C-alpha cells in the first residue's frame, strides 16, 4: 500500500491560472499515457504550478505529503471518536462488536497512510487528543447520549471521511496514492452501510457516494 520512494514529479505551490492547470493535466496524462506511472521522471518544480481548489476538506496548497498528513489526522480522529462511543456503553453487544471492527479499520488506514507519508519523506503527525479535536471534523461528540446519537454521529463522521477522500483524489500526484485512497474510501462506504442499517436508514442512498447528502 505504501507509495514508492523513487523519483517523482515535484509540484510547486503557487498561483496558477486555468491555462497552467490545463497544461499540468496534459503533462500528467501524457506521463500516464506513456506508462511512466509518475515515477520515472523528475520535473522541475517551477515547470508545473498546481492550482488547488478551496472547496475541499483538506487545506489548500497541498502536496501529496500535506494531504496525507491531514488524512492521517482524520483517521486518528475517527479512532478517537469510536473509542469515545465504545466507552459510552450506549451500544448493544452486536453493534459494539461491529463498531470495534470499524475502529480497527480506521487505525489500519492511519497506519497505511503514515507508511505512505514516511515513504515520501514526511513525518506522520501525532494522534490528536480530546473530544474537542473531533469537533474539527464533526461537532457534537461530547453531546452523544443515546444509541441513536452515537449512530448519527458516526454516520456524519464516515460521510466526512468519504467526502474528504473524494475531494483529495484529483489532487494526488502519486499513482499508488490514488489507489490507496480509493480502497480506503470504499471501506468507509462499507462502514456507512453497517451504521445506516443499524440506524434503519437506506444502506445505499446514492449511486455516487461522494460523502455528501
Amino acid at each position, binding site marked *: 500500500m505504501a507509495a514508492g520512494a523513487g523519483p517523482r514529479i515535484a509540484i510547486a505551490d503557487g498561483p496558477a491560472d486555468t491555462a497552467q492547470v490545463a497544461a499540468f493535466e496534459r503533462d500528467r496524462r501524457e506521463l500516464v499515457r506513456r506508462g511512466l506511472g509518475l515515477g520515472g521522471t523528475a520535473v522541475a518544480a517551477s515547470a508545473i504550478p498546481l492550482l488547488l481548489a478551496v472547496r475541499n476538506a483538506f487545506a489548500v496548497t497541498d502536496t501529496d505529503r500535506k494531504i496525507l498528513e491531514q488524512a492521517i489526522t482524520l483517521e486518528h480522529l475517527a479512532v478517537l471518536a469510536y473509542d469515545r462511543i465504545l466507552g459510552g456503553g450506549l451500544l448493544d453487544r452486536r453493534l459494539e462488536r461491529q463498531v470495534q471492527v470499524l475502529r480497527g479499520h480506521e487505525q489500519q488506514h492511519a497506519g497505511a497512510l503514515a507508511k505512505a507519508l514516511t515513504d515520501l519523506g514526511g513525518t506522520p503527525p501525532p494522534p490528536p487528543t480530546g473530544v474537542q479535536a473531533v469537533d474539527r471534523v464533526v461537532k457534537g461528540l461530547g453531546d452523544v447520549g443515546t444509541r441513536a446519537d452515537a449512530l448519527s454521529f458516526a454516520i456524519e463522521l464516515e460521510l466526512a471521511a468519504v467526502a474528504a477522500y473524494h475531494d483529495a483524489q484529483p489532487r494526488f500526484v502519486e499513482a499508488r496514492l490514488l489507489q490507496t485512497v*480509493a480502497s480506503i*474510501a470504499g471501506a468507509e462506504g462499507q462502514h456507512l452501510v453497517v451504521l445506516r442499517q443499524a440506524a434503519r436508514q437506506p444502506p445505499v442512498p446514492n449511486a455516487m457516494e461522494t460523502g455528501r447528502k
Partner: protein
Amino acid sequence: MSDTDGLLRGSLSRRRLLGMGAAASGALLAGCADDATNRSVQTAADESDAADVELLNSVLDLELMVIEAYKSAAARLRGPTLQLAKGFLEQEQAHADALATAVRDLRGTPNGPRSSYELPRLRSRDAALRYAVDLENTVIAAYVDALPKLSQADLRSAATAILTCEAEHVAVLLGVLGEPQVPAAFVTGRAA
C-alpha cells in the same frame, strides 16, 4: 472463458499498451511557447482523451454486464432482497449512464450492451447473491486499476464515487448472506 474474463483481458491488454513507448517523455514538458510545441501538446491531449475513452468503455462494459447479471439474479430473489437488487440495478444503470456521458464528453462513442452475456445458471438465492458479490468485486478491481490511468481529475473523482457505491453494494449483499459486511480495511475488489 467467461464474459468477465474476456472483459478483464481487454483491460489488461490495454495496460500493456500503456506500458509501451515510455521513451522521450520530456519533450512535452520542456516548453510551451512555440506553435510546434502547442500543436504537439494538443495532439497529446487528444491522444489522452482517446485513452480515457478506452478506459471508460472498459468499465462501462463491466457495468453493462452487471446490469444484466442483476436482471438475471432477480429471478431467484424475493421480498426485501429483491427490492434491494432492484435498487442496485437502478444504481448500476446510473453508473453506466454517467460513464456513457463521460465518453461522449470526450468525443468518443460509448459501448452499448452486448446482444447476450454468458451468465452462469443461478440455482438459488445464495448463488445469485454470491455471484453478485463476485461481479461487484470485479468492477471495484477494475476501477482501482483504472484510477491512476485516468488523465482528468474529475474522472478520478467520479470513479472513486462509483467505486465507493459498489463497495457499499458488497457490504449489503454480504450482510444478506450472513457474512461479515466489512471484511477488510481496504476495499480493492481482490481477495486479501
